């Protein structure tokens, strides 16, 4: 356990995921109490076989929770998410180094 200063987010994807979730809450599409209950439950499951260190493992649990909630409410179905994931993967592979990554469609 350290008391040294840390950046707000250790990885850009942590920041994006955090912002996406807060925005859904700000715009009334996600109740924060429900969110905390579901997220806490995911953390508990992930922490069953090992101690989570509060870094990537914490945000992986966060992402899994958000994906599940969005699938439940029909905002982002799992197969749709999988397609977009693949599209983004291709876009990253096809984009020259240094250029902004964009989806082709």
């Amino acid at each position, binding site marked *: 356990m350290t008391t040294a200063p840390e*950046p707000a987010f250790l990885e850009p994807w942590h920041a*994006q995921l955090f912002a996406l979730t807060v925005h859904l809450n700000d715009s009334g599409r996600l109740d924060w*109490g429900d969110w905390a209950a579901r997220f806490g439950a995911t*953390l508990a499951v992930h922490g069953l076989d090992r101690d989570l260190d*509060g870094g990537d493992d914490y945000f992986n649990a966060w992402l899994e929770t958000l994906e599940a909630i969005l699938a439940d409410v029909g905002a982002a179905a799992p197969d749709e998410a999988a*397609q977009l994931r693949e599209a*983004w993967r291709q876009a990253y592979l096809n984009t020259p180094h240094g250029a902004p990554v964009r989806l082709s469609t």
Partner: protein
Amino acid sequence: MRVKALETILTRKGLVDPAALDEIIDTYQNRIGPKNGAEVVARAWSDPAFRGALLRDADSVIAEMGHYGRQGEHVVVVENTPEIHNMVVCTLCSCYPWPLLGIPPGWYKSDAYRARAVREPRRVLAEFGVTLPEATAVRVWDSTAEVRYLVLPMRPEGTESMDLTQLSELVTRDSMIGTGLPKSPR
């Protein structure tokens, strides 16, 4: 890429505004952090009426100071005294007074802290370098989605002549979580 996929789906459906996402990231990265909380603590140390109002109704006081707030969340300020040392945890996930302290550090989110802060607070405090007198009781507050706690640490001795800016520099993030004490004046 899993995050990008969600963001793209939600943006295409008009459920998410990418500009708002950038704004949120900028706010949390650059505009809010423990210095907001330190400003509140320094004022509470200097102004008894402000301190009283803060302990009674922190939400109004914090809103008046213009700190970014979020709907549906209440901040409760708990005051350290020679008799009681307060310490904050979220055993469920990582609820935290974002407007005053920013994003919680990794250790606050770790299983180790979340489990041990309640079970063996004195030992956890010792690992943070905080050893309290035997007579001081430790009270642990479990944050929730609705209520987040901020510790008002005790004003260090030898700071009588300091102004608000100097005082706020003594207030560390950990002293407002209760896992640390304010710095001593040089």
